């Protein structure tokens, strides 16, 4: 019953990179020097890691090999690693600056905000499905215009030392946090949020812990495992799923885009296979995103560590599944 992946990857963890003093150093630089000065230091720190920290190559290689299959030379790989890690460093500095210097330090635009408002007005709650792109935390903070409670599913690893941006002030977080390590993975809390017509934010690109509710889909040419949870939750009441990604448009501006809306019919369906068409929609948008913003996607681990692919479906089978679910 259900389709479970035998070998769910456990190669990622949310532990912070670097020592506590290194993080405190950057917070001080941001506070007294601003973002640009922090970026300056960051470029050298990243260079050091890229040159002298071999485990970093192992973390970077899976995604870069899949996204840039033609860039096989050492110099090309070095350049891409450096560019990717500095992009992450920029995102982390921006996130910290948002807290240390205040929201005015960065501009967050949501050009399609009306779309989100319309979806919320349907009265079935709203599921925001995102991925580890751009600066997702401050992107979620930009959803306050919706004037509804926003709940984000987020786990804080015990070894995490870098602060969420709202931890730099004494202010309350702009969203409620649901811990997937809680009772039944927090699913009852997630369901309650949607039942009350509120907003639930989830990541669709990573599997948490040993969650067996996963499905295999092709991403950049090879299968990966992603969670089925968002789609099963949406199916509870037919909640619309808004795919939301963010990227850095220029020095001080992030754009929050909504590349798609997924409609999962209200139904009780335990078989993960039934959700394949919807996961394909999400992955399609994510694929488009990494084509346009390759260095704004931050999964530094072996996403393609899928040893068995029970859910391999060819194009014809996918078409018949889609027809069965959407007659």
């Amino acid at each position: 019953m259900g389709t479970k992946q035998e070998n769910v990857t456990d190669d990622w963890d949310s532990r912070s990179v670097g020592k506590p003093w290194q993080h405190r150093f950057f917070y001080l630089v941001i506070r007294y020097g601003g973002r640009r000065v922090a970026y300056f230091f960051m470029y050298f720190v990243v260079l050091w890691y890229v040159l002298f920290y071999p485990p970093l190559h192992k973390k970077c290689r899976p995604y870069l090999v899949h996204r840039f299959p033609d860039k096989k030379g050492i110099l090309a790989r070095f350049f891409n690693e450096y560019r990717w890690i500095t992009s992450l460093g920029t995102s982390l500095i921006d996130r910290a600056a948002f807290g240390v210097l205040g929201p005015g330090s960065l501009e967050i635009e949501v050009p399609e905000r009306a779309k989100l408002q319309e979806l919320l007005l349907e009265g079935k709650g709203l599921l925001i499905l995102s991925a580890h792109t751009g600066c997702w935390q401050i992107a979620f903070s930009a959803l306050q215009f919706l004037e509804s409670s926003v709940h984000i599913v987020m786990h804080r690893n015990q070894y995490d030392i870098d602060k969420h941006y709202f931890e730099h002030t004494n202010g309350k977080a702009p969203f409620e946090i649901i811990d997937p390590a809680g009772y039944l993975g927090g699913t009852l809390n997630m369901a309650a949020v949607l039942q009350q017509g509120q907003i639930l934010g989830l990541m669709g690109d990573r599997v948490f812990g040993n969650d067996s509710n996963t499905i295999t889909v092709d991403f950049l040419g090879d299968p990966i495992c992603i969670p089925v949870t968002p789609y099963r939750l949406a199916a509870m009441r037919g909640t619309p799923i808004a795919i939301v990604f963010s990227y850095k448009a220029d020095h001080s501006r992030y754009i929050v885009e909504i590349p798609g809306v997924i409609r999962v019919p209200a139904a009780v369906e335990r078989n993960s296979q039934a959700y394949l068409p919807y996961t394909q929609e999400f992955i399609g948008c994510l694929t488009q995103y990494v084509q346009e913003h390759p260095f704004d996607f931050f999964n530094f681990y072996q996403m393609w560590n899928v040893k068995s692919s029970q859910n391999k479906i060819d194009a014809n089978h996918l078409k018949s599944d889609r027809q069965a679910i959407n007659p």
Partner: protein
Amino acid sequence: MDIKQKLKKVIIEDLALEDVSIEDIEDDSPIFGESGLGLDSLDAVELVVVIQKHFGVQIKDMAKGREVFQSLNTLAAYIQENME
């Protein structure tokens, strides 16, 4: 059919538990996890939908979830208490 029997029937049918009969489900065994019915965390969400659909009972206070979903007995007791 009493509440427990009906609850077992709808769980089996609506959650499509193959090869499970009403007699297989013990009243005091855990609902979630491998030692009981083998339902997982997302099944909890679907169970909430099933209960609302067949008994008209909403589990509004999800904080009570741990208590309510301990076993079929606790779930049936909650439904009995909250049925209109």
